[in-house]
Every structure is written in C-alpha cells, then in structure tokens.
C-alpha cells in the first residue's frame, strides 16, 4: 500500500494526459500550416489560444479548489493535474503565439505566463526536497519548542556568566543579545547570520578559559557546554526557518503573477476582438 506523491499520482495519470495533449498540439501545428502562417489569429491559433486561456483559468481555480474543503475528490489529484497540464499548457500557449513576439500586451501576457510557470517549477523542486530535510533537521521538535529552549539556555548562561570574569560575561551577554534568528526574509532565505555571535562566543570561550579560579573552572565548563548546545539549537532554528521560507517564498511570485497574468490575458483577448 505504498502511497503516491504528486508525480506518480494514479500511476502517472496526468503525466500521460499531458504528453498526449502536447503531442496532439504539436501534430496539429506541424500538419496544418494555415495560409496566413503560424500566428495567434489563424484558426489554429484561435483554437490553441482558446484552449490555453481556458486552461489558465482552470489552473488559477486550483487556488480556490484547494480551500474548498467540502468539495469531493482529492486535492492531491488536482495538484498533480495542475503541474502536468500546466506544463502542457505552456507548450500550447507557445505554439499559439506562433513565435511572434514584440513589445505589446500579447507578449507581456506570455512573459507573465512564463514567470508563473517558472516559479511553479521552483515550487515543485522545493516541495520535493525540503520536507525531508526539515524532518531531518527537527525530528520531533517544533520551532516554538526550540525557541523556548534557546530562551531558557540564554537565561541560564547569563546567570552563570555573572559569576565569571568580565570578558567572559561580556561576550556571553553579547551573544545572547545579538543573535538574530530569521528576522528578515533575506536572512530567513539565507539560513545563517554572518559572523553569528552564537558561533563566535564558542570560539572565543575556548581561548578565554585561562585565568580562572578552581571554582570558576567548573562553572566555565558548564557554560561552555551550554553555549555549544545553544549554538546548535540556534543553527537548527535558522535551518527550519530557512526551509520554511524557501518552501513558501516562490508563492509570492506564483500567486501575484497569476493575478497579473489573468488581468493581462483578459486585456489581450479584448484587444484582439476590439482593436485588431
């Protein structure tokens, strides 16, 4: 009972469908060369154009469908179709254009389509690789749990550092204060902080252990292991945020450009009928 993912859903049903659609479109394109040449206004062009437009609307409908929890069927099937038919549709739209590009609303529409599709491909890639990495990074922990534990180690470390010489106290306090975890989107996507104070403090601590009293030495060892643990917690939290950001940020292109695409496409159709 191995379950399927979005690619091999129902034994590659939509992959097969997409291949068939592409083949038919290509065949039609190669066999019937209209008298006016290949371009959107030929009867073949109209046909392919209408089909692409319908499919674009259907693709966008996925955003609604996946939130209509009371509908029947599987969202997974919809996404599988979304991916494969979306790709097929891009080929059809390209054929529809007859490779005529220029500085006009028509090519703009096509450009927007490419952005949506490209971001979709990135999304696919992200969905394929990040979930596994996230699980490997987090295990059963949650991000909130990690942040809580970091806050706890902070408290503990500061308390111990108070009993240490000033130089040690300073770097520990600085590390606790200046470590930032995914503050900006850029930082989230990058997944690390340049010159991360949490890493620096661990390095510095190794050299600062020199002139300690016997009593302080024991605390020092504790502090060191706390800061090491803290560093790895911080790293894991950043990684998690990074994966989340990378798995989500492409949607900031995919969705707004979908809206732009729909608008441009409507304009493109109106332009054809009224101003040709």
């Amino acid at each position, binding site marked *: 009972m191995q379950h399927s993912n979005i690619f091999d859903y129902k034994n590659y049903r939509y992959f097969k469908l997409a291949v068939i659609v592409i083949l038919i479109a290509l065949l039609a394109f190669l066999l019937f060369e209209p008298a006016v040449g290949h371009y959107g206004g030929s009867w073949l062009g109209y046909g392919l154009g209408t089909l692409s437009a319908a499919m674009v609307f259907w693709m966008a409908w996925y955003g609604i469908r996946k939130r209509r929890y009371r509908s029947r069927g599987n969202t997974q099937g919809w996404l599988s179709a979304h991916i494969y038919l979306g790709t097929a549709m891009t080929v059809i739209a390209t054929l529809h254009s007859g490779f005529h590009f220029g500085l006009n609303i028509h090519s703009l529409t096509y450009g927007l389509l490419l952005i949506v599709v490209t971001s979709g491909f990135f999304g696919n890639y992200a969905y394929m690789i990040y979930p596994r990495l996230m699980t490997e990074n987090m295990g059963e922990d*949650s991000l909130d749990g990690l942040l809580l534990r970091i806050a706890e180690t902070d408290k503990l470390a500061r308390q111990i550092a108070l009993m240490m010489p000033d130089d040690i106290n300073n770097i520990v306090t600085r590390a606790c204060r200046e470590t930032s975890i995914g503050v900006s989107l850029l930082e989230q996507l990058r997944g690390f902080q340049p010159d991360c104070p949490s890493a620096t403090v661990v390095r510095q601590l190794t050299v600062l252990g020199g002139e300690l009293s016997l009593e302080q030495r024991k605390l020092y060892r504790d502090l060191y292991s706390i800061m090491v643990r803290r560093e790895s917690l911080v790293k894991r939290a950043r990684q998690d945020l990074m994966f989340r950001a990378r798995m989500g940020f492409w949607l900031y292109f995919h969705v707004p450009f979908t809206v732009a695409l729909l608008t441009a496409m409507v304009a493109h159709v109106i332009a054809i009928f009224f101003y040709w």
Partner: protein
Amino acid sequence: MVTTLAPNIVQKTSSKTGIVTPKHFKLIIIGAGPSGLSAAVHATEQNVSYLLLEAEEAPANTIRNYQRGKLVMAEPRGLPLRSPLPFTAALRETVLDTWEKTIAEYRVNVRYGAKVVGLRRNTKSLEVELADGSLLSADHVVLAVGVQGNLRKLDIPGGDLPQIQYQLDDPQAYQEETIVVIGGGDSGVENALALTGRNQVIILNRAEDFSNCKDSNLSQLTDAHMKGVLDWLLETKPQSIEQNSTGEFPITVFASTPNGVERIPCHRVIARLGALPSRAQLESFGIGFSAPDLEALPQLSAHYESSVPSLYIIGALAGYPLIKQGINQGYEVIEYILGNPVEPADNALLREKFANFCSDRGVEDVLEKIRKSVPLLAMLNTLQLRELVLESNILLAKAGDVIFKRNDYSTTFYLIIEGELDVLIDDDGAPDATLKAGEFFGELALVSGRRRAGTVRASAPCVLIETPRRVMQKLIDSVQSMRRILNEVAIKTIVHLCIGLSLSEEDLNDVANNATLKSYAAGEELFHEGDEADGLYLIQSGSVTVSRLIGGREVVLLYVAAGHYVGEMSLVSGEPRYATVRAAIATDAVLIEAGRMRDIIARNPEIRGELDARYLQHLQDQENRQQLETAFDSKASIATQSTPSNLISFLIQQGVGEATDVLLIDESLCVRCNHCEQACADTHGGATRLDRDAGPIFANIRVPTSCRHCEHPHCMKDCPPDAIHRAPHGEVYIDDSCIGCGNCQVNCPYDVIQMAVIHDQPEPSLWQMLLGIKPKSLAVVDGPKVAVKCDMCKDIVDGPVCVRACPVGAALRVKPEELLSYAGGTSGEATLLGSDGN
C-alpha cells in the same frame, strides 16, 4: 436548616457512662448528592423520621467539584423526573442554588461533616459509625455516596514503586525533597501548594491550563509559580517511573511533554488522579457484589435493596451514572421503604420501546415474556433486565432483512425473541448455520472488537433485541453465569471460524470443550522461538506480532489481528517453534492442544490442506521479509535503523496494534501547509480533531495526535450518557448527548479527545474566499464545551477530508492489517476468513 445538635449531645452523655446507646432514626440516608437529597426531600414530604449524613460541609460534593460555569445536563432526555427535588439542565451554580433553596424550604434534616466509616447489621437495626467515632442507628439505611470515593492509581510501568503515594496526610513530613505531583485538579494543586517552601515541587498537568481549579487555588498557584517556588509542566503525562540505583534521587519520572520526553529525577511522586468506587469499604459493610472484578456492581433487588437487609443503594453507586436517574431512585426508594408499590419512572420509556411489539400488554408482562423466551436472560434480576431492555433496541425484521454484514465493524449483541436467521460465513451464499428463537449472536465482535466474521440474515420474520457492547460488558462483569456461557460460545465460534468450517458438529464441540482461553498482557509471549509446539493459538481479541532472532536482533515478521491464528507452522512441520509470538496489546487467545489438533488434522484432509497452504504461504512471506531486513541491515550504517521491522515495532508502540484505522503523515512529503487541520476544523464545527505537529516520528512517518479508532475504545468505558459509539465501518464517534464530563478525555491513552465549543462553520462564498474574508459565523452563542474527536468523516461523502485536503498526499489513513505491507512490502497473515479488507 434544622439543627442537628441533639444526637451529638445524647452521644456525649452516654459515652461518659461507657454504654453506647446510639441515637435511633427510622431512616438514615448517607450522602447528600442528588440521589440522597432527593430521598431526603421525599422522606420529608412523607413525614418519615430520618437523618441525612454528608461527609463534606455542603451538599452535592460531586456537583460542587464540577468546573465553574459547567452546564449540567439532564440526560436521558426522555426520562421524566418525578421527585420533589427540582432538576433541569442549567449552570452548575444554578443547580446548586436551587438545591440549597429546596433544602431550606423542606427543612431537610441534614448533618454536614459527618463521614460514615462503618456500617453493621445487628438483630433489630442497622448501626452507622461516623468518622468522629459517634454511632447512630436506623431501621433502614439508604446508601447514596456516589463513586467519587476511591483514589485512582497510576497505571504505568513503575506505578507501584514505594516512592509513589496517592494521598498527602502531613505536608510537614517532607523536607528538602524534589516532589513530582501528578494531576492538575484541585487536590493535586492543594497538595503541591502545601509542599512548597521546604521542597522543590513540580506539577505534571495533562491539560493545557489549570482551568479546572477553584479560583483561590488558581491564584495561589500562579503566585507560587511567579515567585519561582513551584514549577509545572503542561500537556504532560507520566509514561513510566524507574528506580535509580545510584545518585541523590531514588526515582526518575519519564514524562511525555509537547517537546518530547522529559526525565525528572525526584524523591517522591504524589499522584492525584480522581477516584474509583470504594469496593473494599462497601464489602466491609457486608454488601455483596456480583463478581470479583472491580467494575462489578453491588447485588441489588428490584427495590434497590442490597444483600444486607434494609440497606438500600441508589444513584451512581448502584450503577446509574446520571443525575436524573439518581433523583428518581431517591423518590422510589422511599416509596419502597414505606411499602408502596411504585411504577419505576422508566416505565414510560419502556412503553415507548414496546410501541410496536406487544403494545397491548403491560410493561411488566412484556418484560416477563422476553425473559422467558431467551434462556440467557433468566440469569438477570429484574433491575438488570429492565436496564438491558432500556438501553437496547427492539428490532423487527422481515424475512430476507440483513441484520449485519460480514466485515461490518458493529459491536452490538443480539438476542432472538422470535423468528429464525441464517449465518453466512463464506462467499458461497449458502447458510453456514441457523439461529433460532431463544439464541443469541454477535458475541464474537463483542469480545474481539473486530469486524463481523459473517453475515446474519433473517430467514423468517424476527423480533430481536439489539444491545450495545457497553451494556453487555457491564452485565458480563456482574453476572458470572452469563459470562461463562458467553465465553463458551465465543470459544466455539472462534474455533468454528478459524478451523472448523468443514468440521463435524461433534468434532467442533469436542475441540471447543477442550480448548483453553488464555490471557496475555501487552508484550507477553505466547510462545518462544525454539519451544516445543504446544498447540494452535486462535486470537480471540487483541493482536500479536510474530518475530525471529536475525543477526542477534529481534525482527518483527508479521502482525496478526484477532480472528486469525498463529502456531500452525510447527504443527505442520513437527519442528520446534519457528518464531516468537508476542501480544502487541492485551490479548486473549484460545489454545487447542497439539495432540488434539494433530488428531483432527489426520481425520480431516481438508483442514490439513488448508494448514499446509498457510504454512507454505507463511514460509514464503517470512523469507521475503527476512531478505528485506538484511538488505536494510547492510545499509543501516548510513541511515537510522529504519528497517520495516523497526517501523512496525514503532507503530505498535503508538497504539496501532489496537487501532482499526490510524492517520499517518509522511514527513518527507508534508509541506507543512496545515490544510489537513483547516479542512478538519472547517467541516467539524471549527475544532480540528488532529494535531499534525504533535506526535512521535520514526523513519519519516509521524503518528499525529488523532484518534486511532481502537477496537475496544478506552474512551467508551466510562461515558455516563453512553454518547460514544462505533459505526459499522469502524468509526468511533461521539454523538450530541455528550454531557461534557471529560471522562473520555481522561480514559483515552492517546490524548486525542479535547473539550471544545462546537459551532457550525458556514461555507465561505467564492467572493469571500477570493478576498480572504472570513464568513460571519452564525451568531456565536457560547455553547457548552463537549468532547470532540475524529469521526473519520463518516458523514462526509468521499471520506476523511484531512487526507483529501492534503495537496501532496502526505496524509494517509492506514488499517493495521495493511501496516505490514505498508512498512515492508509483502502481504498476508494467517486467516481462513478471506481478505479482511473491503
């Protein structure tokens, strides 16, 4: 309120002289809960001289202990109330107020702070002893002390260590200790507070806050926490307790917290987990019980009289878990004591039940007819029979009607009053057995909780009584003879199913009579690899794993569920046991001795053939699995130990062994979009029933916090209005008669039940969705909190929305039978029942 000083004074003077002459009453009522109060109020009406004794300083302690602002519900809805003590569904505060007013108005003769500790029968009267040593006597005593008396024990490994206690008598006795208090109710919190200052105290609370506590406790608790003298862990449950051989702390508590398992080394554990009925004390009063089990109820006559003459028992203690029932019994018991015949209040309900069956006769008459037509029912007393019929359905079936189908999940039990039915076990359409009036059926599913093993179809017009499993279980627990008979029949049925379809009636009876029923705790071995074969084991309830030692490691090869058998391999081959068989959860198995089995095999070539085929199939399966294991093993150095065998062991640990359907999340696909939870909430009154984020992970498979639909749902055990049911396809669901008592939440070992307010979510329109507006909820009334859990979307076409809403196919539902193939990639288990899936 009437002053009750007089008896005390009498007491004092007499004890000075050394002779105790207890103050005498016609009637003493013990316990001022709803039942006792109702009896007292009615006794006042009837001018009976009586005294009501209450251990606490105020009436109705159980109700007083409900959460503040709880809506007290008046179930069962159809039952009329016939006592002068008023009661309708209302807020806890209102109910208590009304009762206080009634107590004042009727000048109820109650004595508070009077805990009864002893009760004896002497020649003329009953003698009642109070905690302060004083004695009272009465002609009649009504015992209505409810079931909140006996403390619940920790049911986890190490729960019986000497450092664990269930009471705190003297907080001053402990100094400088680390003490773990388990339980976030008032008693736990009060104990914890009393220990702070001199000790390090940690409270483990399974809820997410302390909202069940009294205001005063809550504020003291938050104070203490702020000052740092006390610590708590929320949503935390103890898992096991281990003894430490070295170090400062004698024991370590392992607790599962939202952030994983926490180890807490400590000196002492104080567990305050609520209460169980106080059987020992009642037995010391001389009250007889119907069976040795702790759950058994006291023996009662139709007039609530116990085995001690003139001692009556009513209310929750008598086994009637709802307030309304108790109040009615308070009224009835006074009438009985006065010698007045009263028609029990539930007669109206019974009459309704009998509406289309013998409606021309009186209720008592019909009950008698029922008792006479089914011999099994002759073992019940009148009260038990009434209870059974009240909780059951009377079914009228035409010839050809199907009562249940093979592979259905229903667990009700049927008694045949009139008519005849066919049983169809295999697919050939020909009846494999017939059932006649006076017989019963459905006992196997009752025992195993698994799917129905056959189809039952009426062959003539029938009248049947369909009884829920819970009610039967209660009766079996208290009526020994009934349990014996049902056990015998269940053994015969399982033998018949597993090996006997082609056996002669004679052989079948012979085997069944000589088979032994054995019980195993989770983890216990049925037999061990290399043992001499002692026979064939038919799994009656529970499930087992089959494992072998491979490369020094115990590798699980198979998972076998109830309704199947294990142990045929050595029987066929004559060699020692090929593998170890271990109970995955508490399991009952029927053992047929090797000698007898060989004898049968020799005489029945058909059975021999079937066992042989099984044997070969098993060998093949195991060989495949072994290959797989070793293939995994050679790669094991790289990854975690994620062999299929380890995955099965992990899933069984997560309760999948007793599950019938479990939600898993493949974390290597899950994109953390949370659509599964949103879909669930959207279609289930705004409260999601799964927690995707919580739950253990193994080899990328997470078992999220979501109902497993256990074959014997623990949650059903203790539900006062019996609101939890099992649908034919196995879904365990809670209906709208839930009174929000929280028992199921406590009883579910997997923590999947929450208390929530449900309000239907309107479906957002297209525009609202496009613009991201939340649809306006229908005027949000603050309804009562009720128990909610996954119902497997049984009322939604196409099934579970969590699975269907997942865009990437990471959420999946698995039945344990499919587990193995899911984890490993082979098929099959020992069965002659044919495929379990449908």
